[in-house]
C-alpha cells in the first residue's frame, strides 16, 4: 500500500530535506503538507473499502520483522493529525519564515515540526511495541525541543521538567517492552493478542507501560509538566503539543489495553484509570478557572480534557442493550480525542493570534478584541463549544456516548463528573470570551491580523464542529478492525 508508506516517508524526507534547505524550508513544508494530507486521505479511503491491513516492513513477517497496521483507529488519528499539522504548517509560515537571512528559530522549527509529524504517523501506523518506543522517543525529543524553542529561562525550565517526566515515561515503557519480549518472544501487537496470558511478567510490564504512557499523556497526577510547557511553547508548537503529542501516547495506551492485553486488564485497573481521569477533569478545571494568562487556561483545559479520555477504560463494555450503536464508550473516548485535537489546536492558534495582536498574554488585555478580530473570536468560540461538550460539536457526541455508557453501566458517578466537567469548562472558557465581547478599554491599540491567518483556526474549529454534525462517517471508520475488547470492556 503506497499510501501508508507515503504517510511515513514523506514527512521524514521533508524533515531531513528541511535541514540543508534552511531559509527555504517553509516553502518545502507548504509543498509537503498537502501531499501528506492526500496520503492520509488515501489510507482512510483504502481501508474504508478493503478493511484493516497489515504490511510487514521489509517483507519479514512478525515476530521477526515489524508490521505496519492500518485499521479504523489508526486511519482516524492519521487523518486528524494530517489536518491539524497541515493547518499548523500553513499558520506557521506567517511566523517562522525569514526570507532574508536564516535565524535560529526559523532553522530549527521546520525540521522539528516535520520530524514530529513523521513520528506521529509512525506511532499511528506501527504494529510493533519496540518500534512504537523509538517513534515515541523521536516525538518526545522534537516536542521538548519545540517547547524550548523560545530560549527564555521559563521555557527552558519547562522543557527540562517535561524532559524529566518524559524520560521516566520512556524508561518505564521500555522496561515494559523488554519484559513482554522476554515473556512472549514477540513484539507484534496482533501476535501478542493471541499469546497474552495474565501472569507476573505481563502484569509488571503492563503496569510499567501504563504509568510510563500516563506520564507522557500528562494524566493527573503526572500532569504538572504540561501547563508550563504548552503555554511556553510558540503558538503553532503548543497547538501540535496539546492536540497531537499527548494523543500519541494515549493512542498507545488504547492499543495496549484494548488490542494487546485485554485479558490482563481487570475492574481494579479500570477504576484506577477512571479515578485518575476524574482527578484530571476536576483538578485541571479548577486550576484553569484561576489562571490569568490565556495560554495557561488553555493548557490546563488540556489537562482536564485528557481526563475524559481515560474515563473510556472503566466505561468500555457497558454499552447496554438499548443502544443501537456498539462500543459506545470506546467510540466516545476516541471521538473526544479527535475533536479535542481539532478544538485545542484551533484554540492555541487563536491564543497565539491574540498574544500577537495585544502584545501580551494576559486575559484582561482581550477587552474588545471581538470587534477587531471577529474571525478569531468566532473560531475560539466554536472551539470552546466543542471543549464544553455543547452540541452540535464533536465534543458533544463524545460526551453523549460516554454519558449513555455510564448510565447504562450504572456508574452514575462518572456521568456526574463529566457533566460537572462540562460546567467547569464553561466557566473557564467563557471568562476569555466575556472579555472579548466587552467594550475595548481606552488606549488599547490592537494591531490588526491578516484575515487569512485568522481563517486557519476557524477551519480547525469548524472541523471540530463538523465532527459532531457528520459523526456518522468517523463512526463507521472507527468500526473497521476495532478490537472486540472495546465492546466487552476490560474485565
Amino acid at each position, binding site marked *: 500500500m503506497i499510501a501508508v508508506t507515503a504517510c511515513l516517508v514523506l514527512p521524514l524526507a521533508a524533515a531531513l530535506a528541511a535541514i540543508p534547505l534552511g531559509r527555504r524550508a517553509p516553502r518545502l513544508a507548504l509543498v509537503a503538507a498537502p501531499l501528506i494530507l492526500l496520503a492520509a486521505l488515501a489510507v482512510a479511503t483504502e481501508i474504508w473499502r478493503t478493511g484493516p491491513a497489515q504490511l510487514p516492513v521489509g517483507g519479514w513477517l512478525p515476530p521477526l520483522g515489524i508490521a505496519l497496521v492500518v485499521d479504523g483507529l489508526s486511519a482516524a488519528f492519521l487523518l486528524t493529525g494530517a489536518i491539524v499539522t497541515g493547518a499548523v504548517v500553513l499558520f506557521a509560515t506567517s511566523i517562522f519564515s525569514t526570507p532574508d537571512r536564516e535565524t535560529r528559530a526559523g532553522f530549527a522549527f521546520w525540521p522539528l515540526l516535520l520530524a514530529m509529524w513523521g513520528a506521529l504517523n509512525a506511532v499511528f501506523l506501527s504494529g510493533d511495541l519496540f518500534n512504537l518506543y523509538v517513534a515515541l522517543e523521536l516525538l518526545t525529543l522534537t516536542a*521538548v525541543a519545540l517547547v524550548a524553542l523560545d*530560549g527564555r529561562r521559563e521555557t527552558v525550565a519547562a522543557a527540562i521538567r517535561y*524532559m524529566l517526566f518524559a524520560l521516566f515515561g*520512556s524508561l518505564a515503557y521500555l522496561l515494559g517492552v523488554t519484559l513482554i519480549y522476554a515473556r512472549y518472544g514477540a513484539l507484534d501487537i496482533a501476535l501478542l493478542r493471541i499469546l497474552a496470558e495474565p501472569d507476573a511478567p505481563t502484569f509488571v510490564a503492563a503496569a510499567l507501560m501504563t504509568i510510563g504512557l500516563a506520564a507522557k499523556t500528562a494524566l493527573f497526577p503526572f500532569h504538572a509538566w504540561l501547563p508550563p510547557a504548552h503555554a511556553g511553547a510558540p503558538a503553532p508548537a503548543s497547538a501540535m503539543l496539546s492536540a497531537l503529542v499527548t494523543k500519541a501516547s494515549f493512542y498507545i495506551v488504547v492499543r495496549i489495553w484494548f488490542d494487546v492485553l485485554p485479558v490482563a486488564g481487570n475492574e481494579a485497573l479500570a477504576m484506577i484509570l477512571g479515578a485518575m481521569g476524574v482527578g484530571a477533569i476536576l483538578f485541571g478545571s479548577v486550576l484553569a478557572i484561576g489562571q490569568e494568562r490565556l495560554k495557561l487556561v488553555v493548557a490546563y483545559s488540556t489537562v482536564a480534557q485528557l481526563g475524559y479520555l481515560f474515563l473510556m477504560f472503566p466505561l468500555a463494555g457497558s454499552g447496554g442493550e438499548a443502544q443501537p450503536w456498539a462500543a459506545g464508550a470506546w467510540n466516545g473516548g476516541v471521538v473526544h480525542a479527535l475533536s479535542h485535537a481539532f478544538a485545542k489546536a484551533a484554540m492555541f492558534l487563536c491564543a497565539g493570534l491574540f498574544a500577537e495582536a495585544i502584545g501580551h498574554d494576559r486575559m484582561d488585555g482581550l477587552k474588545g478584541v471581538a470587534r477587531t478580530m471577529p474571525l478569531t473570536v468566532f473560531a475560539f468560540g466554536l472551539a470552546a463549544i466543542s471543549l464544553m461538550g455543547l452540541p452540535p460539536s464533536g465534543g458533544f457526541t463524545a460526551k453523549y456516548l460516554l454519558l449513555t455508557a455510564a448510565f447504562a453501566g450504572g456508574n452514575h458517578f462518572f456521568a456526574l463528573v463529566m457533566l460537572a466537567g462540562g460546567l467547569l469548562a464553561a466557566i473557564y472558557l467563557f471568562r476569555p470570551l466575556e472579555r472579548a465581547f466587552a467594550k475595548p478599554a481606552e488606549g488599547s491599540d490592537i494591531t490588526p491580523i491578516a484575515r487569512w491567518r485568522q481563517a486557519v483556526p476557524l477551519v480547525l474549529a469548524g472541523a471540530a464542529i463538523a465532527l459532531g454534525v457528520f459523526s456518522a462517517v468517523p463512526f463507521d471508520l472507527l468500526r473497521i478492525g476495532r478490537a472486540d475488547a472495546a465492546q466487552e470492556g476490560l474485565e
Partner: protein
Amino acid sequence: MSGALGHSATLFALTGAALVGIGLYGFVARTHLLRRVLAFNVIGSGVFLFFGATGFRRPDLGADPAPQALIITGIIVALSLTALALALITRYAALSGRSSLEDEAPDDEAPDAGDERGGG
C-alpha cells in the same frame, strides 16, 4: 559449562534490576540536574543489561540477536536524549545561574532536618 552460564543470565538480570532501582533513586531523589541525567543513564544501562540477560537464557543457542539489536538502538536513543538533556541543562544554567529547577532546593542550601522546602 552451559549450566553455569544459565545461572549467570539470571544473575545479570537481577543485577540489571538492582541497577534500575539504584538509578531510579538517583533520578528521583537527587535534585542536581546533571546527577539526574547520570542516574538516567544508569537506569538505561540497567534496563539494557536486564534485557540482554533475558536474551541469554539459552547459552546453547548463543545470545539472542534480536535483543542485542534493540539494545544498540536503545543505547543510541538514550544517547540522543542525554545529549539534549545536557544541552538544556547547560543552557538553563547559563540563563538562570542554577543547577537545579527553581521549585527544588539546590543541593547546598537544603537544611537536613524537616521535609523539603517547597515554594520558589
